[in-house]
């Protein structure tokens, strides 16, 4: 492994999404955002629905991560996620439709499905944020 690099691995039940060496990783942990540079202290956290970005040189890659677990070592970041999508794989139209559906369900406020609707809203919004961010960069 090259000196001063991080190996970022993103694994989901649908397979290995990403496995490359990068310079820098940021993610959304349960206690807030965190950044990782090579030489980080060993660190384990739960990832919420959110963004995960990594930088190599000037190249920035953005991922959408749906619940996950991250184990961070000095030269390695391992992410186990329920699902993960690269920003260019996200279907914006679908996310928008999902957002509408979820909002409608939340308005009705049926308690049974409240949690589900809430988290699907969160997913949709985060997906759209990811796409937005990619357009800006």
């Amino acid at each position: 492994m090259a000196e001063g690099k991080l190996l970022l691995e993103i694994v989901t039940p649908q397979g290995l999404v990403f496995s490359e060496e990068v310079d820098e990783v940021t993610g959304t942990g349960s206690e807030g955002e965190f950044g990782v540079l090579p030489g980080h202290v060993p660190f384990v956290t739960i990832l919420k629905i959110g963004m995960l970005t990594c930088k190599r040189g000037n190249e920035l890659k953005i991922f959408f991560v749906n619940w996950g677990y991250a184990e961070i070592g000095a030269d390695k970041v391992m992410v186990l996620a329920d699902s993960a999508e690269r920003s260019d794989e996200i279907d914006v139209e679908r996310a928008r439709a999902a957002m509408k559906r979820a909002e409608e369900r939340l308005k009705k406020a049926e308690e049974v499905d409240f949690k589900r609707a809430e988290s699907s809203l969160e997913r949709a919004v985060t997906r759209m944020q990811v796409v937005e961010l990619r357009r800006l960069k």
Partner: protein
Amino acid sequence: MATLRDIKRRIKAVQSTSKITKAMKMVAASKFRKAQQRMFELRPYAERMNVILSGLAGSVEGDMHPLLAVRPRKNVEVFVVTSDRGLCGAFNTNILKAASKHIADLRTEGFNVTVSAVGRKAKDYFKRRNVVLRNSWTGISGKISYSNAQEIAVDVIESYTNETVDEVIIVYNEFKSVVAQKVVIARLLPLAPIASAEADLPVFNFIYEPSIEEIFGKLVPKNVEIQIYRALLESQASEEAARMSAMENATKSANEMISRLSLQYNKARQASITKELMDIVGGVEALKG
């Protein structure tokens, strides 16, 4: 004896049957490849999950997790995975037979048995029998996704944690090879104790956020999801493999039948020609007279 036309009609019928079975075999083959692919895709995740869990198990103290705790057994749930569609040889029969036998055994040991079923075959089977069907999921075989497994896991975990059931046994077809599936009867809950990582591994002082217990508590149910997902995928691949070989056999028998009928047809044709010839010869002889 069957007339020529009858035989011809039968040959046609068998021919179209063999066309259908051949097509079904092809479809099953492509579905099988997909299912197998997904089984392979799950592997890296499952392996890493095990590494992490065993790493954590060493650091968590006390009663590790309610899903790991063994309670005295009273109510046992049998979780049966079958397919929605038939025409796949003995695939479903094997599973249902094994499950029924296991249920009967558990009953003689004095446990209350409930059943939850994946697939229409299991649902219909147990509905007709004297069994408490607690829950069932149909319409997912053929298009299993991870969220199906999550949905099932939530239900199973809930019934375990609120003590409706004290043990969950999973019965499914494990994929061995294209020609062999094995019925597996295994305990799903309580989870088998997770062996902690070997002591001579370097112990890092990890920072845990939020806390190690919370992380462990989230990963254990995840592990149940993964096990269910794996069973569903195994069953899926087995189903398509079983269908493939069933359809292959059906095509073979149809072709055999066609060749037998053709032989019969030719014999009958020859007989009728001979008969006609005899008639003609007989007529000529009579005219001569």
